[in-house]
């Protein structure tokens, strides 16, 4: 049992040690994006026209960080009269698509896996956005 414990511990440590440079690399890139693009700047990207949902998806996919930040920014965008559909696109793509994490994901899980997963997540963020906004409209919530 002791031997099994040590083997498992060694295996886990090796697995973890290999992923440390990737995790620290992602941390650096996320910190960089957050430092260079303060959350207050996001509102200025929306123009109030039909392109807003696409802008929301694109910005949400590239932006990264704690989901809390996306909710706060989303709330502020709604207050600034940015459409619900654009805000939903922004929030959903923020939490499901990871452009910044993509290099790390492809290194650890395979390039095709990461690419397939992120493209599908981006497409579904658009579909979820349309469904959510439509249902909310039908329910007369927004």
């Amino acid at each position, binding site marked *: 049992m002791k031997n*099994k414990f040590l083997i*498992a*511990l060694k295996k*886990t440590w090796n*697995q*973890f040690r*290999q*992923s440390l*440079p*990737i*995790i*620290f*690399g*992602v*941390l*650096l*890139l*996320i*910190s*960089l994006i*957050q*430092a*260079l693009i303060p959350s207050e700047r996001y509102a200025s990207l929306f123009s109030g026209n039909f392109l807003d949902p696409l802008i929301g998806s694109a910005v949400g996919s590239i932006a990264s960080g704690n*989901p809390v930040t996306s*909710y*706060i920014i*989303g*709330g502020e965008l*709604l207050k600034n009269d940015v459409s619900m559909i654009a*805000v*939903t696109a922004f*929030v*959903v793509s923020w*939490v*499901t698509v*990871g452009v910044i*994490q993509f290099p*790390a*994901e*492809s*290194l*650890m*899980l*395979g*390039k*095709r*896996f990461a690419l*397939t*997963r992120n493209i*599908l*997540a981006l497409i*579904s963020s658009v*579909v*979820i956005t349309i*469904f*959510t906004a439509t*249902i*909310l409209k039908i*329910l007369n*919530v927004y």
Partner: protein
Amino acid sequence: MFIKIKEKISTNWQFFIVSVLISAILSIIFPASFGQFLKIFYNLLLNILPVFALVFAFIFIFDLFLTPKRIIKILGKKSGFRGWVLAILLGIMSSGPVYMWYPLVDELRDEGMRDSLAIAFLYNRAIKIPLMPMIIFYFGLPFLIIMSVLMILFSVINGYVGEILLIKFGEKNENRSS
């Protein structure tokens, strides 16, 4: 010379070095943001430390108690409905940033986890129960319910479609670090 050095350094470390170089170059170009960059990096690091421990414990427990045979039974091709429920629930319950969970998913896939369940697990990480009051505060309860239900639904759709695409285009664990 450069190629020889590159060959000696693993892809993971190459990624880290490139990240450091990008950070250094952009910090020189935008020196005003450097302080903020360090502060954010430090805070992120503090935030992920408990998740480090959690993921390490998870991988260790899996390594200790779960044999590949067992993982295949729970999360493999024949795991069926139970496998989906497990992947969705584990995704929703896991905490911390998504990239912290890549080592675990990598390990489980090596041992026989279905790609569709790996995709569903990673997708459901977007649903965070502790953050739900915040979503209700900013967007309302109907928004939370509709978005969460749709996300769970799409995690399954993405899982199925993703697995079909990966099988069709022959994903053979290429470019993986371990």
